[in-house]
């Protein structure tokens, strides 16, 4: 997989430190699932975290803490991974990583695809994050998405197909980062639907009613 668009250092730092909220973190982890380059930097940042932890000022603990931990160990078996894998035929077709499919039903036919018009459909991922929304998008091959602008930040990770806009050409594994009021007009590659994960600031951050009504469209 040839990846040309990577995470910015600021986003990666926010993810590694734990500052980034859940919805954004899904996009970062999805890119990391595909990109060994960013994974190497992420590992270095966790070393930085480890170094800061090792150098942090020790605080005295209450007497019974270790005992409490020991009491809980019997119920805690050894871990086998990060959880159950939903290895559906559908996820396989599009190469969608587990960190995303963990949020979706195992059976592809039951995926609650919702049309956004213009042939575009979405599934919103259910998170505990009220500050941002993560959604899986399916945009038909060859589609020219109308010219639109973004408010706030946006992260998009491509799993299959791809698109081109004013900022470059994006294919599987690539991540696109948008800041502030960018205007763009993505053009989906011919031959293959574009399946991607898009994370945007939660709509309630926008005060204008008009912007909120238009949100399904600009949320692309």
């Amino acid at each position, binding site marked *: 997989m040839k990846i040309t668009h990577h995470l910015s*250092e*600021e986003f990666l*730092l*926010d993810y590694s*430190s*734990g*500052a*980034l*909220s*859940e919805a954004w973190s*899904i996009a*970062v*982890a*999805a890119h990391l*699932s*595909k990109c*060994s*380059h960013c*994974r*190497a*930097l992420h*590992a*270095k940042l*966790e*070393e*930085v*975290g*480890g*170094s*800061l*932890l*090792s150098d*942090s*000022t*020790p*605080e*005295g*603990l*209450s007497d019974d*803490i*270790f005992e*409490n*931990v*020991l009491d*809980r160990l019997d119920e*805690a078996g*050894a*871990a086998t991974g*990060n959880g159950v*894998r939903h*290895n559906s035929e559908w*996820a*396989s077709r599009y*190469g*969608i*990583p*587990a*960190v995303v499919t*963990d949020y979706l039903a195992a059976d592809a036919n039951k995926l609650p695809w919702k049309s956004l018009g213009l042939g575009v459909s979405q599934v919103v991922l259910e998170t*505990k994050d009220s500050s941002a929304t993560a959604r899986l998008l399916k945009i038909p091959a060859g589609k020219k998405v109308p010219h639109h602008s973004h408010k706030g930040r946006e992260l998009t990770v491509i799993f299959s197909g791809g698109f081109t806009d004013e900022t470059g050409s994006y294919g599987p594994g690539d991540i696109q980062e948008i800041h502030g009021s960018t205007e763009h007009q993505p053009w989906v590659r011919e031959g293959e639907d574009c399946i991607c994960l898009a994370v945007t600031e939660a709509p309630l951050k926008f005060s204008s009613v008009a912007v909120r009504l238009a949100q399904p469209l600009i949320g692309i």
Partner: protein
Amino acid sequence: MSIDVDIVAERRNSGLDRVHVGNSSFPTIGSNEESKEVGLKVESVYRDEQSRWIVAVAENRDKKAFKRLFNYFAPRIKGFCQNNGSTSDRAEEVVQEAFVNIWRKANLFDPKKASAGAWIFAIARNSRIDLIRKENRPEADTTDPFFEQNEPESPLAVLETERKSKLLRDFVRDLPAEQQQVLKLAFFEEKPHSEVAEELGIPLGTVKSRIRLAFKRIRSEFGEI
């Protein structure tokens, strides 16, 4: 490239991790058929004592080693959490959750990929997100069929990675104060870079450039990563 390594023929009972020459450390598709264990063991001189404790917990469910890890890291995790404004009680809840997870996940610890401090930091961070923020922590999963595996690394390259990780820890202490401050606000207080700018009363661009300077030094010190 000069790397000091101990090459020992057989030290199965040493409790130390071993690198199997000719057997890649990453499960890459198609590599398993050719891989052969040749009996030569390479043992890192850079591995820290704490890594051995985690390995002992994983392999022998060793409660003495677990207690040692606790004695060293628990007060630091508590201090780490209290930087974030957590009360003593909340911080101790995170400590307990983290240590239950350390016990459970010790078998997933790979000393070739991370130092003990980095691995425990990641567990403490995730426990804090789980307990305090009540959010999930999405992570890339190496067992995921759609995880793009790394190219297999040679045992010497793995050792070089370990050596650099060790150096990195000293290196962070030597960063210029303003770069260190940005990193500390991010890691200790879980502040996204946008909030770091607000808290310090400096422009976002300045925070970004400090982050980039710190990263540039990490890169130049440790080669392209």
